[in-house]
């Protein structure tokens, strides 16, 4: 039951991503402008500020717990270039 839920929500999310992006991409302007990313660029907002430490900590938990995966974020940051 839980597996089905995960599978369907995964597929549903991806499909809606595609529709959303393809439909809106060219008509909606980004609502946070590149010059408004002061706070988002701050290292304290970074998902993975210290990769060496976070990968070690993730390993310490994963080695002792049954669950694995879907950890760690991506993106954010200054959006430069």
């Amino acid at each position, binding site marked *: 039951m839980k597996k089905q839920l995960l599978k369907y929500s995964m597929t549903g999310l991806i499909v809606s991503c595609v529709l959303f992006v393809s439909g809106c991409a060219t008509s909606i302007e980004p609502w946070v402008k590149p010059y408004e990313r002061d706070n988002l*660029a701050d290292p304290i907002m970074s998902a993975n500020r210290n990769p060496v430490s976070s990968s070690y900590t993730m390993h310490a938990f994963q080695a002792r717990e049954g669950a694995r995966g879907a950890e760690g974020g991506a993106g954010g940051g200054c959006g430069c270039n």
Partner: protein
Amino acid sequence: MNSKPLSNFVLLFIAVMSLTLLTAFTAGAAELQSAPDFTLKSNSGENLRLEEQQGNVVIVNFWASWCAPCREELPHFDAMQKEYEDLGFTVLAVNVDEYPEKANNLLNDIPVSFPVLFDNLDKVSKLYDVRAMPTTVIIDRDGNKRLTHYGYKSGDEAKYKEVVKALLRE
């Protein structure tokens, strides 16, 4: 378990290739548009107006203290300022930090010989449709935008120099 690994990988490879082939690089627009006028407070304390610079070649560079490529670029602009100033050229560095103190702290460390203007309310950024950080606009002696470059990568300063030299000769 499965022959899936190979087919998975092939599909992923196809995804990657379509990705690289479909991404386009947005270069600067080449239409002759007049650069919008603006007045901002500068680091010398006085207000500075773009129109006053008519007759000079101007580089308007939008930067922020939190933007690493922007910081990298500043010394290159300083070199250009020193080299071409006497020929009728200036860089106007428009800082978009919400708190100008952050910009000043940085400038204590990287002194620059060109004016730094403060656009902390983002009015000029909107006017110039700043789509990336940094954004560099090169304006000719008649006040027209001749090049708009988004972003900065090592080597871009050579491109700016070429355009400036050509515009100085006009």
